C-alpha cells in the first residue's frame, strides 16, 4: 500500500510539473545538441524532444479544454513578484498546434535539409529547437516581459534559420538582415508598450495588469502602450502595412524552415496580440476603442485582396504561397476586428487550420525542390504526374486553402462569414467569399502547372523518400479530418474565445476558479512570503 501511495505521489508531482516541462524539455535540447555535436544525435534529440512536447501539450490541452486555467509559478514565487505560466484553452490550442507542426516537420526536415544545406546540420537543429522553444515560451507565459525574452529567442534563431538558405540563393542573407532590422524594431516597440504599462500599473504579470488597467482606460499612457504593443506584435505577425519582411524570408529560407515558420511563427504573434487585446486590456477597453475596428477591417481587407492578388502573378510556387500567407493573416485580423466571440473563435480556428494547410503546401514545395532543384513553375511543370502522392497532397492542401467544403479551410472561413453576419456586416461576408475566388485562381494555376503541363523529358522525379512523404500524408489527412470532425478545433476555439473575451481570470480572485484547477501547485509555491513552506516536504 505504501508503495502504491508513493508512486501516485510521484506521478502527481510530474503531472503538476507539466507546464514547466513543456518549455524545459525543448529548451535543454538545443544545448545538448551542441554539446554532443553529432549530426545523427542532433536529429534524434530534436525529434524526441518535439514528440515529448507534443504529448505534454496534448495533456495540457485536455486539462483546460473544458474551461478554467492552470497556473504554474516559476521558482515558486507568487505572481506579481515571480513569473507565472498560465495555460487556458486559447494558448493550450496554440501550444498544441506549434508542437504538432514541429514534431511532424522534424522527419521531413531530415532529408530536405540534407539536400538543401551542406554543412552545419547540427547547428541547424539546435536553432530550430531554440525557435520552437521561443515560440512556445511566448505563448505559454503569463508575464509580459517574459513574452519579450522568448520572442527574442525565437526571432534570433529565425534570422539564423532564414540566413541558412544562403547556400541556395544569397538573397537569403539580405532577407534575414531586413527581417532582423524590422523584427528588432517590432520587439523594441513591444518593449516600449510594456514600459508604458509598467509605468501606469507597476506590475508585469498579465493578470495583475488586467486588474490594474481597469479604471484607467482613459489614461493616455495606457492607450499609447496599447498602440505600441499592437504595432510591435503586428510587425512580427506580418500585419499588412508591416508585412514587408515576410515574402522574401519565406522564399529564400530552406524549405523545412519555411514549413515550420509559416505554420507557427505568425500564429504565435497573433495569439499574443489577441491576449493583450482581450485579456490584458479588457474587452470593454477594446470595444470602446472603435478605432480598432475602423483601422483593422480595411487593413485586413487590403491584406486579403492585396496578398492574394500579388500571389496570382508569381512564377515561383514558394513565393506565391508566401504572399498567400499575407492574405490569410488578413482573415485572422478580420476575425479579431469583428470584436465578438464568434469572430475571435473564427480567428483561433483559422490559425489552427491555416497552420496545418500551409504546412502541407510548403512540404509539397519542399518535395519539388528536392526533386526539381527549385520551385519555379517552369521547373515543376508536370511533376504532379511524376510524383503522384505529392501531387495529391498538394491538391488537398490547395482545396483547403481555397476553403472547399470538407476541408479544414472551409470550417474557418464559414465561421468568419457567420461572425460577419452576426455583426450585420454582410458586405464583408461577401468580400470574404470574393477573396476566396482569388485563392481559386492562384491554386488553380498550381494544379495546372503540376498536372496539365508536360513534364520535362529529362526529369526522373519520383515521390520523395518516406521520411518526407509520411509527414505530408499525415498533415493532408489532418486537413480533411479537421474539415469533417470539428469537435477538437471548434470546441477548443470556442472555449478559447470565451476565455479571451471574458478577460483574464484576474489576480484578485484566483480562488474563484480553484474548483476548475485540475491540479495542485506543488508545495512551496503557494505563498512566496512563507519562509517555512520549504520545510514540509
Amino acid at each position, binding site marked *: 500500500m505504501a508503495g502504491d501511495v508513493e508512486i501516485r505521489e510521484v506521478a502527481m508531482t510530474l503531472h503538476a510539473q507539466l507546464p514547466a516541462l513543456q518549455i524545459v524539455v525543448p529548451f535543454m535540447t538545443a544545448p545538448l545538441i551542441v554539446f554532443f555535436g553529432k549530426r545523427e544525435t542532433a536529429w534524434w534529440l530534436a525529434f524526441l524532444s518535439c514528440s515529448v512536447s507534443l504529448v505534454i501539450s496534448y495533456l495540457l490541452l485536455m486539462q483546460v479544454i473544458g474551461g478554467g486555467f492552470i497556473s504554474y509559478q*516559476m521558482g515558486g514565487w507568487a505572481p506579481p513578484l*515571480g513569473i507565472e505560466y498560465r495555460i487556458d484553452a486559447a494558448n493550450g490550442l496554440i501550444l498544441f498546434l506549434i508542437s504538432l507542426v514541429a514534431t511532424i516537420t522534424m522527419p521531413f526536415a531530415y532529408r530536405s535539409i540534407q539536400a538543401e544545406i551542406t554543412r552545419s546540420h547540427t547547428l541547424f537543429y539546435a536553432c530550430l529547437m531554440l525557435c520552437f522553444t521561443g515560440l512556445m515560451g511566448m505563448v505559454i507565459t503569463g508575464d509580459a516581459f517574459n513574452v519579450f525574452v522568448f520572442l527574442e529567442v525565437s526571432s534570433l534563431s529565425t534570422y539564423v534559420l532564414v540566413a541558412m538558405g544562403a547556400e541556395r540563393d544569397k538573397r537569403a542573407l539580405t532577407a534575414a538582415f531586413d527581417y532582423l532590422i524590422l523584427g528588432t524594431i517590432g520587439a523594441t516597440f513591444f518593449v516600449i508598450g510594456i514600459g508604458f504599462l509598467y509605468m501606469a500599473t507597476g506590475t508585469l504579470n498579465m493578470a495583475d495588469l488586467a486588474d490594474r488597467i481597469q479604471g484607467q482606460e482613459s489614461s493616455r499612457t495606457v492607450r499609447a502602450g496599447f498602440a505600441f504593443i499592437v504595432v510591435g506584435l503586428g510587425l512580427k505577425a506580418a500585419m499588412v502595412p508591416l508585412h514587408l519582411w515576410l515574402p522574401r524570408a519565406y522564399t529564400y529560407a530552406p524549405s523545412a524552415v519555411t514549413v515550420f515558420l509559416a505554420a507557427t511563427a505568425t500564429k504565435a504573434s497573433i495569439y499574443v496580440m489577441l491576449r493583450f487585446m482581450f485579456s490584458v486590456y479588457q474587452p470593454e477597453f477594446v470595444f470602446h476603442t472603435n478605432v480598432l475596428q475602423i483601422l483593422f477591417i480595411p487593413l485586413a481587407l487590403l491584406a486579403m485582396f492585396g496578398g492574394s492578388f500579388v500571389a496570382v502573378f508569381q512564377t515561383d510556387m514558394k513565393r506565391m504561397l508566401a504572399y498567400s500567407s499575407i492574405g490569410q493573416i488578413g482573415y485572422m485580423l478580420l476575425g479579431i476586428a469583428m470584436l465578438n466571440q464568434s469572430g475571435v473563435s473564427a480567428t483561433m480556428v483559422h490559425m489552427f487550420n491555416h497552420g496545418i494547410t500551409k504546412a502541407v503546401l510548403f512540404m509539397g514545395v519542399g518535395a519539388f525542390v528536392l526533386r526539381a532543384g527549385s520551385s519555379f513553375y517552369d521547373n515543376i511543370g508536370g511533376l504532379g504526374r511524376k510524383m503522384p502522392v505529392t501531387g495529391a497532397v498538394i491538391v488537398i492542401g490547395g482545396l483547403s486553402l481555397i476553403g472547399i467544403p470538407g476541408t479544414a479551410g472551409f470550417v474557418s472561413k464559414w465561421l468568419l462569414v457567420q461572425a460577419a453576419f452576426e455583426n450585420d456586416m454582410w458586405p464583408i461576408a461577401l468580400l470574404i467569399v470574393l477573396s476566396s475566388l482569388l485563392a481559386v485562381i492562384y491554386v488553380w494555376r498550381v494544379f495546372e502547372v503540376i498536372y496539365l503541363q508536360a513534364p520535362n523529358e529529362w526529369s526522373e522525379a519520383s515521390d520523395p523518400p518516406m521520411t518526407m512523404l509520411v509527414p505530408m500524408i499525415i498533415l493532408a489527412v489532418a486537413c480533411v479530418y479537421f474539415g469533417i470532425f470539428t469537435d477538437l478545433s471548434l470546441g477548443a476555439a470556442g472555449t478559447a474565445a470565451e476565455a479571451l473575451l471574458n478577460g483574464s481570470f484576474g489576480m484578485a480572485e484566483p480562488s474563484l476558479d480553484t474548483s476548475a484547477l485540475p491540479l495542485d501547485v506543488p508545495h512551496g509555491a503557494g505563498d512566496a512570503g512563507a519562509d517555512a513552506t520549504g520545510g514540509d516536504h
Partner: protein
Amino acid sequence: MIETLVNITLFLMLVATAIAISQMHRLFAVVMLSGVFSLLTALLFVALDAVDVAFTEAAVGAGISTVLMLGTIALTARTVKPSTRPQTIPLIVVFVTGAALIYGTMDMPNFGDPLAPAQVHVRPEYIERSVEQIDVPNIVTAILASYRGFDTMGETAVVFTAGIGVLALLSGLGRRRRKAPPRGPQEPKA
C-alpha cells in the same frame, strides 16, 4: 537640482553624439562614437542609481560591441557611400512614432515621484522581502537570479542563440581537428 543639471548635460552630449553618428561618413568614427555613446549612457545610468546596468552597458556597449564593429569594418568597408534615398517617408514614420510617445508621456507620473504606481505596487515587496527570503545585499541580483530567474534563463538562451548564429554564419561547429590553415575566404575579386 544638481542631478537634473547632470542629467541634462549628459543628455545633450548624448544627442550630440547621436547626431554626429548619423552624419559621419567614416565608419571608424561612427564606431568610436558609438562607444562614446555607450560610455555616456553608462554615466547616465549611474546618475539614475542603476549601477548594475551601468556596469553592463560599459562592458557591452563600449567593450564587446565596439570590438565586433571594428572587426566588421575590417571585413567590409570603411566609408559610407552617399545615399540618394528620399527621406520623406522615414521622417514621417519617425515623427508619428515620436508623437505617439509624447502623447503617452502626458499621463505619466512625474520623474522621481515616490508615489508613482511603479514605486508603490511591486517594488516595496521586493525590497522588504528579499532580505529574509534571499538574504543577498544586491537586490538586483536577488531579482535577476531568483524572483525572475526564468527571464534570466531566457536571456542566457538568447546569448546562446547568438553564439550558434554567428557559428552557423561565419565558421561552423568546431571539432577536435585541424591545425588551422589560413582559411581563405570566398572573396569575390573586387
